[in-house]
């Protein structure tokens, strides 16, 4: 549960964001980031459907390297 998935914001509607990672789209809540400036194109760390923090593209990529490895193993 604690791993978190980095995703890229594709569209924002209120506290709801359409996010994308590896060609998969998901609705993500921005409710926990409402005091941050969050924009389309930003990357967020998603945990159980909620963005818990913004992160850089670079950090998103290195986390995805790891997740890819897990998925290969599984």
């Amino acid at each position: 549960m604690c791993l978190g998935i980095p995703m890229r914001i594709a569209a924002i509607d209120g506290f709801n964001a359409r996010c994308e990672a590896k060609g998969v789209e998901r609705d993500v809540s921005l409710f926990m980031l409402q005091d941050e400036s969050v924009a389309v194109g930003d990357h967020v760390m998603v945990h159980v459907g909620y963005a818990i923090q913004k992160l850089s593209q670079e950090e998103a990529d290195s986390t995805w390297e790891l997740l890819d490895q897990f998925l290969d193993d599984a």
Partner: protein
Amino acid sequence: MTADARTWLRRIERLPLPHSVKIMNVCGGHERSITMAGLRKALPGNIELVPGPGCPVCICPEEDVFEAIEIALGEQVILLAFGDMLRVPVNRPKSEPRSLEQARTAGADVRPIASPTEAVRIAQENPGRAVVFFAAGFETTTAPVAAMLAEGIPDNLSVLLSGRLTWPAVAMLLDSERPGFDALVAPGHVATVMGTEQWRFVVEKHSLPTAVAGFTPQSLLAAFYSTLRQWLEGRPFLDNCYPQLARPQGNPTAQRQLHQVMEVVDANWRGIGSIPASGFALREAYAAHDARRRFPDHADPNRKRAGEMPPGCDCAQVVLGRIYPDQCRLYGKGCTPRNPIGPCMVSDEGACRIWWSGGLRENRAMAEKTR
């Protein structure tokens, strides 16, 4: 392993380390990365990586799982839980449902979900039915549950909360006579939400080297290196090897929502007992959404006791870092992910399951016995 990770590894290899030093992690995500990346084998043999209390499913009290099963069976509700919780067994006669999964087989409407937002959607889609969300988890999961409640949820949705804080279990270990570790790697996403400062007590009160780590091998190795150097130099400080996400004060919005919706209370940990100020409870203002108040007839106070792991299961010892998974006599012998006996083999964050899926198939307890 990336070039970056190999550099950290070489730095660690060059340290003049004594014959044994133990570093504890308290996060299932950390343990998974360590195991899958083979960091135990890659590191010098005198460094022990101990998985500690990092699995919320494993320590979710039996009485809470029992209550969820009883509500699912006894009321005409839709019972939602994170997927991991469905197979967690409780101790009761074989003729009665021992898990939420078995309750479903017995006719209860039990559904796995992956997000609190799904709970809201299901409640909206079923306005005529009561929906109960059994929410077990550490801060990273409980904060989104608080956010869900703070944003507002349908009247027919209530929460059976079993949220826990991570640091009090570490504090309990450190206050005990036998903490069992020399340094701590603190959980990166818990710190992202709650702030790295939450871990300062480990350094200041207990003088133990500490570093917050992310989940990539390079971040974990950087944290190991940091704590080992602190240890060698006798100069512990709180290091942050995950500054990309974890800030000193964490995510203040998330903490505000947590505080608005929940209060911190003493709480029971399965197999361990009560730990002061280690759990979350819904505040009075959210009583209408508290499943414990809405369905008060299903709690069994007699179940509130420590040491209620299934017979023969050493999960509590595993969670506390007192033994490694393969030192349980049942590991791989009767207890496997396909046929789990204890919660540590059920949950993706349980050390037993992580080790087994990581390919560690030998049972050390048995090997030692026959030697």
